């Protein structure tokens, strides 16, 4: 494991006066489970958007798996193996749960077949196993728009997982989910990640969840990484306690 | 082409642009506030012309002085705008604001088809033409070329007045401000307690009046025949798109741009005259899809 899986060098981005990425130097090794914490507007999602190619930084570069992906489109980056889920589930609202996953699976191959029906174009097992992992196998034929928020999150993640990413970035997987569901949800996700041995970054507010599931924590404050280390260290850090957890 | 011809081309272009602008203004207003391209907007232009011709003919029959036209023309526009614009908004538009854009376009297109035949059923197919006002205002010579004062002075000044009036109406009057607010964000405006229903109606009627006014003003110099609106709708499309959707100042510039381009082409390459507006529209949309004067993004991703 010589090269880090993800490495950002001196990332800079500002919307007018608001600095959302302040010379971010950051690297992630394979197998890590990084929890990103920080208050809203601290630049967490912006960081994800930059890494996944949705936003271009004003300075600095992003290297994924040893290659420069700074100027690449989300599509290309995804096909290279850096995949994300969304804070607000991004689903194909007119498709069934299974078809959403199938489309994602089809995307993995990147070929747009005009002849073979979607159902046959992708491996049934791959789709089923992912649905199994996230526990949506039973809802396969439901219209994605009809699912409750928790399950929509899971579907959103399933659509990412089926791409068999090297790195999966989860943007607030538990937001909008009731507290008692949160742990079940995270457990499911983690099981799925373990099953595929996926390196993962997840943005999270809930300290319990962070300390329970993360191997490493990075705290964002005003567009920079204020603290980075094991959950114990970071969650003990005074600045973090003051500005992030808010005590 | 000789020097003075440039001046002439400009004069011709401006009087044409004036009408173009008035129609486009209504269309761009509706889009700005309701986010709908009203395919039937050209019909208001046609109806305005017919109404003006009818009233004008009646007035002449009463032996009224042509000067009355100065009153009759806007009156016709207001009647058409309130009657047909109001009807269309209350009967159709307000039921589709929350619908899919495709269906919105389709509904206005249906309205267009209905208006087309409606004109024919009411006004028949013979040309209408009441031009007393033009002769009444007389002519002016420029470089030995005779122009009617009506086209040379009246049309452009009316267009300018309307432009300034609308601008200040939107800026200073409370209704105007509400219209602007709604155009920025429907939901928020509703939350702010603005009666969006009412504002939409007002906007649509005003827009219809503008379209009809252009028709009314054109009627004294043009034989009014069925189908005259279908042509206008595409031209004002061209203006609105060139300017950028919802751009009022832009519409003014774009109208002048297209008006001048057209008149110059008549002098230089007459064969291209009809093509010019659409060519401009295509070029602009290709290189600046949001239009010349708009900052909106072409696509949401």
């Amino acid at each position: 494991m010589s090269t880090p899986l993800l490495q950002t060098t001196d990332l800079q981005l500002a919307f007018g006066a608001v600095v959302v990425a302040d010379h971010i130097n950051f690297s992630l090794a394979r197998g890590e489970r990084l929890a990103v914490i920080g208050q809203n507007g601290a630049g967490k999602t912006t960081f994800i958007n930059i890494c996944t190619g949705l936003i271009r930084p004003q300075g600095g570069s992003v290297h994924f798996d040893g290659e420069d992906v700074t100027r690449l489109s989300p599509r290309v980056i995804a096909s290279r193996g850096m995949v994300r889920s969304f804070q607000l589930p991004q689903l194909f609202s007119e498709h069934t749960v299974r078809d959403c996953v199938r489309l994602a699976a089809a995307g993995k191959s990147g070929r747009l077949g005009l002849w073979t029906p979607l159902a046959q174009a992708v491996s049934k097992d791959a789709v089923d196993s992912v649905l199994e992992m996230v526990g949506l196998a039973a809802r396969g034929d439901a219209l994605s728009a009809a699912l409750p928020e928790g399950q929509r999150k899971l579907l959103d993640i399933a659509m990412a997982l089926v791409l068999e990413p090297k790195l999966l970035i989860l943007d607030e997987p538990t937001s909008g989910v009731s507290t008692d569901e949160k742990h079940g949800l995270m457990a499911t996700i983690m099981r799925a990640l373990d099953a595929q041995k996926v390196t993962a970054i997840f943005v999270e507010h809930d300290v319990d969840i962070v300390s329970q599931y993360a191997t490493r924590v990075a705290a964002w404050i005003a567009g920079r990484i204020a603290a980075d280390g094991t959950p114990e260290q970071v969650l003990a850090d005074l600045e973090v306690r003051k500005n992030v957890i808010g005590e | 082409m000789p020097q003075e011809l440039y001046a002439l081309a400009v004069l011709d272009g401006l009087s044409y642009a004036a009408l173009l602008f008035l129609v486009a203004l209504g269309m761009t207003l509706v889009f700005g506030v309701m986010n709908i391209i009203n395919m039937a907007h050209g019909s208001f232009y046609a109806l305005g012309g017919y109404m003006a011709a009818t009233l004008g003919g009646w007035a002449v029959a009463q032996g009224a002085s042509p000067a009355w036209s100065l009153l009759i023309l806007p009156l016709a526009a207001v009647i058409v705008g309130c009657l047909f614009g109001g009807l269309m908004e209350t009967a159709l538009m307000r039921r589709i604001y929350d619908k899919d854009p495709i269906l919105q376009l389709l509904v206005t297109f249906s309205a267009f088809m209905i208006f087309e035949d409606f004109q024919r059923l009411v006004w028949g197919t013979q040309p209408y033409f009441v031009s007393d006002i033009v002769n009444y205002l007389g002519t002016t010579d420029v470089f030995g070329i005779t122009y009617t004062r009506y086209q040379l002075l009246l049309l452009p000044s009316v267009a300018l007045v309307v432009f300034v009036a609308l601008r200040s109406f939107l800026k200073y009057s409370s209704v105007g401000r509400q219209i602007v607010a709604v155009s920025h964000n429907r939901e928020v405006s509703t939350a702010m307690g603005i009666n969006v229903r009412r504002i939409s109606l007002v906007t649509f009627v005003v827009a219809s009046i503008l379209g009809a006014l252009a028709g009314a003003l054109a009627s004294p110099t043009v034989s009014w025949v069925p189908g005259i609106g279908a042509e206008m709708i595409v031209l004002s499309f061209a203006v609105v798109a060139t300017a950028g959707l919802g751009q009022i100042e832009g519409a003014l510039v774009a109208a002048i741009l297209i008006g001048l381009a057209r008149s110059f082409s008549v002098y230089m390459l007459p064969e291209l005259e009809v093509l010019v507006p659409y060519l401009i529209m295509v070029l602009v949309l290709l290189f600046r899809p949001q239009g010349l004067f708009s900052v909106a993004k072409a696509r949401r991703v």
Partner: protein
Amino acid sequence: MKMSVLSRLLVGALSVLVAAGALAQVKPAELKVGITTFLSGPASVFGVPAKVAAELYIEQINAAGGINGVKLVPSFIDEGVGADKLLSEYRRVVQEGGTRVMLAGISSGNCNIIAPVAEDLKVLNIMWDCGTEKVLEDKRYRYVTRTQANATTEMVASVLYLLKTRPDMKSIAVMNQDYAWGRDSWELFRNTLLALKPDVKIVAELFPKFGATDYSTEISRLQALRPEVILSTAWGGDLDTFVRQAAQRGLMKSSLFILPLAESSLERLGTTLPDGVIVGARGDHYFLHPQQKDDPKLKNFVQKFRENTGSYPIYSVYHMVQGLDGLVAGYQKAIKANKGQWPSTEQVADAMRGLEFRGLTNVVKIREDGQGLEDQLLGLTKKTPEYKFPILEKIVIYPAELITTPVGQKSPEWVKTIKPELLSNPRFKQYN
């Protein structure tokens, strides 16, 4: 499956045709006449009055016993729906109604399209108003004839009258509608004019699009060019608009206008048209026709038409009546040739050739190529106290046979061979 369906279709269709063919011999209870005319669109300024005329005149014919007791029953088709829709309507009327006679149509474009279809459908088609000379010069038809003149006759007459009024004219500009009639009529006019007066300068050829509503730029340009003569073969709303805008801007003071179709706009334009404009009538039709104005047939119809519509007949009205008169005359000739028996469509079609008949004005003769020979009438506008619109003075009537392309020749070439001697032909009489 496909073939069987196909064969069934054929059988069905053929049987219908055969049945129709058989019917034609027996004297029918009524004679269905399909009439295409503009009921919508700009050209309805001709079409609608013509429809009224057709109804009035067919009523008159039927009142007089129709054709050997067979009454005419018209059914109208709108030419304004566009050529392709018109075609399927035309087919519908012929195939559905078993109509044996069609009067079509006004638009040159439509005539060009319909003629081959009529030949195809084996239905007698009388072109009652369209002017294009090409249709009968490019192809020989059996079922297609024309009961009036064509563009060549009209344009040559116009040039002759122009050169009579302005023998030493130097420059001309044209402003025609941009479609077949506008382009072709200009080609004929130009070739004729240059044949008779090679030194004339053509300073501008403007073809604004059909149905244009604003000519101010064209007018500015014409004023800048100052041509001595301005020709426009435009008609209907376009002509009205152009003339009005031109008059409003004094263009008609600086140039002599020649408007070969303006007879149809005289009453609508009222006093807009100044004195001394050359106006043509696409034929010799005029309610003050110098030779026929006291003829009862013309007088009565003009009066009847005015009672119905409140306006004077225009050329499309005269052409409609002429078409119907030609139809009746053709049938009567065919019946005579058929020893009193009701003729087949083919017999009538053949009888139309060499037919001589009279509409409301001078006698029309139909040549063997189906082309009608119709005299041409032109004059200068003059305002008079009796009428709310200008009437024509200094009228000249041009006998058709002197100014129509001989059978088998192509007009654009033939007109180039016209010799200046024609100008001084003694048969061109001027009336005052």
